[in-house]
């Protein structure tokens, strides 16, 4: 993939789409034809993807700002509305992007209104909200759009007031005379002349760092008051006049196929308006949610249960050596020679992580109102345009005739990138002829959709007498992550799954190394879960690094500092490692029965180091404190970043200790939180965060802090007991 393909692509409406497309590269592959061997091609494509994951570069292409009012609207009443294409799911993106716009455009914060853009209002955000790329991708674009608008406002003010532009400044939603504040025009007054404006060909000058007053500040979240008053409308809450509730019949096993379906006694049930049977899409629409679910039980459905998969079979499939093999990192000529089974100095490790559910507290939810030639859908979704297009396909309408309103989400975590519920509500509404709300139960949410795939890791390594890693190999088997989202046939054929590679590569300066991924097909759907492969891969790699440090009889922090490269990334990793160690008082004494462990990671160009302090009471590990040092490039909102670090650590701990989806007799065994418990305040440790910054570009923060969690805990446990944790979750439900 060339740097050209990393830039912004112009859509047919002249707006920008997301960055770097596998689809584009796949087309290139077809054009190249069979001259390049498939294995080598996969290898080089995978490496480009790894590079992109770790060091994404975003550069706005010329021409995108021709319509800066896509996002920013100025009213005659001097209010400024920012339409965010990125969706708020708790990560604070609305506030953060709003403050970027307000700062560059010189809008007083109280004049700023931030709203969620719907699909009728550009820009087509096919990628959706996730991947830790909302701020990295939007930050440069919003600043350029805002700076362009500011320049146009200044120009118009100069014309209207008869004062030279360099004697004017934009400040607090107005253009004022630099030396006489009584001479000014508000943006609201100036915007009336906008139809005469021509966007200049040259790119605008952005404010310098010392001119910024909001970027870099912790501005209170604009959505909190409404949320705490109970006024916010989430996807599960939305109501419309004349609405009904829908419930979908779910297959009884993961491999089930419908054999026959008829209404049975469902239509006679109280409140039922209609029963929909369309192939294997079966649902009931009723006056209340309870009535819809009750009537489902009265349908006459027969299923072939299909193969009754057991967990052991899944585990056998997800084993290194099975499936599509791609070498995603390699170096040196002596890997095999240095890592021989008969070498007493060989360090070898095997680790496993399970299937996991997203378990956002708000289950999947949408309300659809389908008319003959149009439709409106209100939904908890991370990907408004993808959902709109899937709905269009399902109901046979033109996508442009559908407006999808993404609402606030009660958690997304990657599951709502392809929820499925929008299509369900739309199909029911189309057949029922009224607006229909579908809100999944917890059981449905735990058993349908896609999961974080299981992983299997085999690592081998060796250190020399000076504490330097001589060779290291990481092999990992897993199932679809990004390819679990709707993808083209070509994408599936090539099998390049950027999600799998997150965190899998070796960050250290090792002369001989190889990282190989294996991707298998599973009978359950898998897909992106916060961090994608990151938590599992860092668990594996950083546990191995810890074991090598132990082999070298070196302190784990010192060992890492010694083996990290002197590259820019290496230096940033060393900085966070040292900062975390200092904050955690690494090396100083701890209370009796406590120990510390450390782990580091790189993800989306953000570096993180975490140190866990653990003890063991009555055979149960307890995490007392997590110290995290994070360098996400430039920080837009310090408190926003800290909140994401805290939250990601808690989710990582939940996955480390509790979370496991198991397959039993062809079914997802968990029916509710009783069988899939989450971390509670009881297990939550104290968290301390050190924020470092580097450079002028913000990188992502939603996922990176998940990376080191499991490894830091495992490494702390090793320091405490000499026992190596190699399987998650630690509190295994099955003993």
């Amino acid at each position, binding site marked *: 993939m060339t740097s050209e393909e990393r830039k912004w692509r112009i859509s047919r409406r002249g707006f920008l789409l997301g960055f770097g497309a596998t689809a584009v590269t796949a087309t290139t592959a077809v054009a190249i034809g069979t001259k390049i061997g498939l294995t080598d091609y996969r290898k080089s494509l995978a490496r480009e993807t790894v590079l992109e994951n770790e060091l994404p570069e975003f550069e706005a292409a010329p021409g995108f700002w021709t319509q800066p009012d896509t996002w920013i609207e100025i009213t005659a009443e001097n209010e400024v509305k920012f339409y965010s294409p990125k969706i708020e799911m*708790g990560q604070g993106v609305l506030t953060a992007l709003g403050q970027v716009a307000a700062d560059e455009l010189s809008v007083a914060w109280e004049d700023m209104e931030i709203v969620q853009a719907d699909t009728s209002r550009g820009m087509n955000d096919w990628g959706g909200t996730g991947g830790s790329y909302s701020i990295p991708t939007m930050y440069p674009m919003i600043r350029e759009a805002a700076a362009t608008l500011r320049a146009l406002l200044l120009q118009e003010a100069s014309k209207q007031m008869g004062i030279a532009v360099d004697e004017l400044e934009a400040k607090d939603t107005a253009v004022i005379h630099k030396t006489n504040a009584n001479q000014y025009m508000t943006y609201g007054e100036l915007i009336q002349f906008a139809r005469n404006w021509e966007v200049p060909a040259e790119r605008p000058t952005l404010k310098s760092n010392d001119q910024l007053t909001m970027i870099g500040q912790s501005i209170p979240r604009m959505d909190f008051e409404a949320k705490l008053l109970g006024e916010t409308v989430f996807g599960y809450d939305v109501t419309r006049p004349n609405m009904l509730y829908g419930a979908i019949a779910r297959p009884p096993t993961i491999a089930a196929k419908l054999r026959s379906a008829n209404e049975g006694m469902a239509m006679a049930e109280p409140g039922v308006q209609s029963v929909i049977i369309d192939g294997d899409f079966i649902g009931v629409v009723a006056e209340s949610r309870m009535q819809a679910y009750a009537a489902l039980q009265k349908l006459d459905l027969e299923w072939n249960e299909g193969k009754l998969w057991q967990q052991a079979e899944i585990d056998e499939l997800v084993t290194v050596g099975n499936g599509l093999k791609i070498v995603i990192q390699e170096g040196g000529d002596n890997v095999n020679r240095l890592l021989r089974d008969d070498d007493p100095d060989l360090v070898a490790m095997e680790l496993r992580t399970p299937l996991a559910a997203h378990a956002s507290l708000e289950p999947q939810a949408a309300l659809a109102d389908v008319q003959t030639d149009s439709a409106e859908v209100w939904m908890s979704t991370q990907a408004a345009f993808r959902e709109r297009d899937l709905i269009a396909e399902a109901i046979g309408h033109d996508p442009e005739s559908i407006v999808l309103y993404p609402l606030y989400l009660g958690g997304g975590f990657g599951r709502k990138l392809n929820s499925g519920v929008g299509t369900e509500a739309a199909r029911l509404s189309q057949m029922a002829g009224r607006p229909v709300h579908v809100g999944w139960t917890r059981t449905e949410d735990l058993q349908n959709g896609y999961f974080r795939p299981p992983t299997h890791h085999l690592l081998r390594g060796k250190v020399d007498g000076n504490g330097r890693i001589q060779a290291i190999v990481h092999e990992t088997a897993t199932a679809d992550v990004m390819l679990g989202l709707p993808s083209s046939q070509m994408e599936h054929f090539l099998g390049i799954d950027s999600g799998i590679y997150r965190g899998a590569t070796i960050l250290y300066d090792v002369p001989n190394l190889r990282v190989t991924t294996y991707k298998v097909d599973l009978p359950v759907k898998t897909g992106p879960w916060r961090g994608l492969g990151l938590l599992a891969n860092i668990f594996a790699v950083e546990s191995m690094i810890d074991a090598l440090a132990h082999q070298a009889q070196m302190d784990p922090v010192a060992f890492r500092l010694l083996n990290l490269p002197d590259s820019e990334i290496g230096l940033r990793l060393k900085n966070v490692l040292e900062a975390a160690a200092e904050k955690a008082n690494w090396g100083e004494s701890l209370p009796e029965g406590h120990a510390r462990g450390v782990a580091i990671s790189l993800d989306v160009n953000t570096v993180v180091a975490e140190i866990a302090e653990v003890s063991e009471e009555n055979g149960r590990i307890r995490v007392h404190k997590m110290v995290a040092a994070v360098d996400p490039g430039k920080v837009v909102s310090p408190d926003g970043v800290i909140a994401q670090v805290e939250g990601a650590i808690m989710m990582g701990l939940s996955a480390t200790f509790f979370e496991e989806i198991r397959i039993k007799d062809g079914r997802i065994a968990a029916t509710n939180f009783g069988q899939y418990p989450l971390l509670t305040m009881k297990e939550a440790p104290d968290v301390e965060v050190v924020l470092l910054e580097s450079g002028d570009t913000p990188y992502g923060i939603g996922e990176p802090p998940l990376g080191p969690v499991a490894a830091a805990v495992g490494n702390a446990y090793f320091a405490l007991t000499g026992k190596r944790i190699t399987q998650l979750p630690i509190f295994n439900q099955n003993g």
Partner: protein
Amino acid sequence: MKLTVNGQIVEVSNDPPRLLLAVLREELGLMGTKYGCGAGICGTCAVLVDGVAARTCVTPLSAVEGKEIQTVEGLAQRNEEGTIVLHPIQQAFIDHQVPQCGWCMSGQMITAVSLLTENPNPTEDEIVEAMARNYCRCGAYVRIKRAIGDAAQMMNEGGTS
């Protein structure tokens, strides 16, 4: 049957028999109380029934006949000018920038108010024990705990609710 919801007497039918959560949300339009699991585990559905937190997803309507129910919508008050005066728990949750997605917040605050009504000066351990059955998937536990401690102080210093 009659019940009082946020100070207002409402008349609801218990035919067919329903859970309190469905009545609050679908019939009374009080969407602030949330559905999370339907099994009383996650706590997002909690409201105050005669001042004590109850999980509405497992509370039949018949169980609250004649009782006083307070939902999240009833926590804040309006003063004479009509401005909103936040409950100390809401104020503390804003001061500490507690929420992330916000779905669990109603249940968290209701459970906290229930605790502070019963125990106005809880220790940190007592806060944890009382809040240990309220999930927050976004992981805002550190700030929830901090904010509850702060709210306790505010309420003891005579902060108006």
